[in-house]
């Protein structure tokens, strides 16, 4: 084309880009790119732990950006806003999840540091993928559009598929990656179809527009919309590992490299719930009578299946996988309440859960030993004598997951069940408490194994290599345990954080 022709073309009306609004995303992607490039160009190997340190610093920068954003959205003069053509929303909710997911990245990187060297896999790839995956998660939380949700979810997932298969010499790792990939694509298809149906019913994929349309119009026939709900719930239910879309969870959690499992169980679940809460509780609020029974069903199934099946497992990673399913059930209890209090409870639960679950899988990372294969309950026997502090940390994390008072886990359960009671979901509250009782047995089993030796202990101690606790993992575990206890005793700041993070519905300007 000649310059004259080019001059004739009207410039496209690109939306204004608020760089500040997407700064956490930019930091995460930028960090990934810099790390990738630097590692490729570097002449010599970087010092030990450089990659992990870089990732943690990147995550810290992202948290700092989130803090600035938080100041802006909680400022009464300015408040929440949409950015870049209404595609993303910056409100307390997005910032909350940006912080949660970034925390998961930092903790996951700390766990991965020594693990990768131990397994002979050292390199920047895992960290790059973790940052990209986290970016996808934050995109999901910020999304103000179903398309953006879908793309965020895909970014999150694709990186996770690869991370699950990162341990190239472990067959289980490969197997879990393939399983996750196939089933994940399957569920994405459902999600996408759901988006299409909702678009067909409402004429938009933008949350503000959808909510406006739903509250302003009475649909003559809402089959299309409700079918869309169902398919969206399939896709998001898969991501948060809610029964009956949980089938992949035990196998993948068990097979994936343990630091990846830690990241998967925390960040991926958080991002899934971010989308679930924003789409259903916030956007489809008008249709709550239609989706609440479904949420109820998913919550009950997740609670019961998660806690009952956790009891019959013999592999600790598998136990934790099932327990994470039951945790998903608890968070769904908060979602089912369909109130601000329910959302705040779910958010508190997610943040508390993130630290508990990363810490728990962190312990599994260390105990698993070289080859990442030693995850049977027997590997934990007598841990209290070999590594008293590690056993103590794990005990705290397990007790917190069981919901013992003075830990963040107790308050988390308290808030979601309280919200359910307030929303008159008494049956659900009862089932949740019952499943908490059942699940406590699982945590007890692990604790017992750690503190009670058996007769063969003496002989096994000889053959069993000592559990090493490298500094990075020690730091991650320390942070997780400290968070669990401190929030359990003084929860007010986190409670306020969660309460101010209830999503806001905004239309494009």
């Amino acid at each position, binding site marked *: 084309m000649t310059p004259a022709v080019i001059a004739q073309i009207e410039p*496209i*009306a*690109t*939306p204004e*880009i608020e760089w500040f609004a997407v700064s956490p995303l930019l930091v995460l*992607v930028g960090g*990934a*790119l810099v790390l*990738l490039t630097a590692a490729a160009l570097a002449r010599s190997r970087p010092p030990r732990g450089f990659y992990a340190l870089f990732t943690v610093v990147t995550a810290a920068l992202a948290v700092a950006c989130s803090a600035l954003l938080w100041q802006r959205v909680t400022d009464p003069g300015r408040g929440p806003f949409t950015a*870049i*053509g209404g*595609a*993303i929303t910056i409100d307390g909710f997005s910032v909350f999840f940006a912080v949660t997911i970034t925390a998961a990245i930092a903790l996951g990187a700390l766990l991965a540091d020594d693990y990768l060297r131990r397994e002979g896999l050292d390199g920047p*790839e895992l960290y*790059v*993928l973790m940052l*990209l*995956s986290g*970016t*996808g998660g934050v*995109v999901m939380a910020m999304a103000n*559009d179903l*398309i*953006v949700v879908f*793309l*965020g979810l*895909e*970014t999150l997932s*694709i*990186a996770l*598929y*690869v991370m699950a*298969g*990162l341990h*190239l010499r472990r067959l289980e790792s490969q197997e879990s990656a393939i399983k996750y990939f196939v089933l994940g694509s399957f569920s994405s298809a459902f999600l996408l*179809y759901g988006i299409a*149906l909702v678009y*067909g*019913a409402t004429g938009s994929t933008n949350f503000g527009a959808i909510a406006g349309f739903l509250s302003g119009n009475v649909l003559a*026939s809402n*089959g*299309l919309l*409700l*079918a869309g709900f169902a398919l969206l719930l399939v896709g998001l239910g898969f991501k948060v590992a809610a029964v009956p879309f949980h089938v992949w969870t035990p196998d993948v959690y068990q097979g994936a490299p343990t630091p990846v499992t830690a990241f998967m169980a925390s960040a991926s679940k958080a991002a899934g719930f971010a989308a679930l809460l924003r789409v259903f509780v916030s956007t489809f609020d008008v249709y709550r009578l239609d989706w609440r029974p479904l949420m109820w069903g998913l919550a009950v199934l997740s609670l019961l299946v998660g806690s009952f099946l956790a009891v019959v497992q013999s592999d600790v990673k598998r136990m934790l996988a099932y327990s994470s399913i039951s945790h998903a059930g608890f968070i769904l209890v908060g979602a089912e309440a369909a109130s601000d209090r329910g959302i705040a409870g779910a958010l508190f639960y997610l943040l508390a859960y993130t630290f508990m679950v990363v810490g728990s899988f962190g312990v599994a990372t260390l105990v698993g030993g070289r080859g990442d294969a030693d995850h049977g309950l027997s590997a934990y026997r007598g841990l209290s004598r070999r590594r008293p502090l590690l056993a103590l940390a794990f005990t705290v994390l397990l007790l917190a997951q069981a919901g013992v008072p003075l830990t963040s886990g107790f308050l988390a359960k308290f808030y979601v069940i309280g919200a359910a009671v307030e929303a008159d979901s008494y049956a659900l509250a009862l089932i949740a408490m019952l499943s908490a009782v059942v699940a406590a047995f699982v945590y007890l089993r692990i604790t017992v194994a750690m503190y009670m030796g058996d007769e063969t202990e003496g002989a096994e101690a000889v053959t069993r290599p000592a559990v090493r606790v490298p500094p990075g993992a020690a730091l991650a575990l320390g942070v997780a345990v400290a968070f669990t206890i401190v929030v359990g005793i003084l929860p007010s700041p986190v409670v306020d954080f969660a309460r101010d993070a209830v999503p806001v519905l905004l239309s494009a300007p």
Partner: protein
Amino acid sequence: MAAQNLVFAVLAVVAVLAALRVVTTRNVVHAALYLVAVLGSVGALYVLLAAEFLAAVQVLIYIGAIVVLFLFGIMLTRPTLGRESGLDNDQRWLAGITGLFLFGVLSYVLVEAFGDERLPRLEGLDREALTAERGTGAVGDAIFSTYLVPFEVVSVLLLAALVGAIVLARRE
């Protein structure tokens, strides 16, 4: 518009039959080639809907890239080409029922919602306006305005996929 209806019918029949063959044929290479027929028919349907850009992208990406990748993958991993057993399992009836149910429900809701609507006749419309509204240029505009964020996120997605592919393909 009898001609258009006729073309639609032909394309639809081809797509459905080819799709059935994809899952019933015992030869993996044949399955991939039937897939080309399915995707090509769908692409042609897009042309019928006056979505030329989408049709072009469909052919370029699905047929040009993905199916070719499939074929490469098959050739590099399968020692023998030809009819094979073991492509099927005892779950096919349950899977069929599930699939049929999903198909039934989704068809039902689509018919219920849009059964009475008709596509506007092209003669009565201003071609210029139509192109401005849904032509390739309009798609380009949308990508760089309304869908700027998705567009950028896709690049991150591709980056993740790229890194992932290298990680998995690399042998130590």
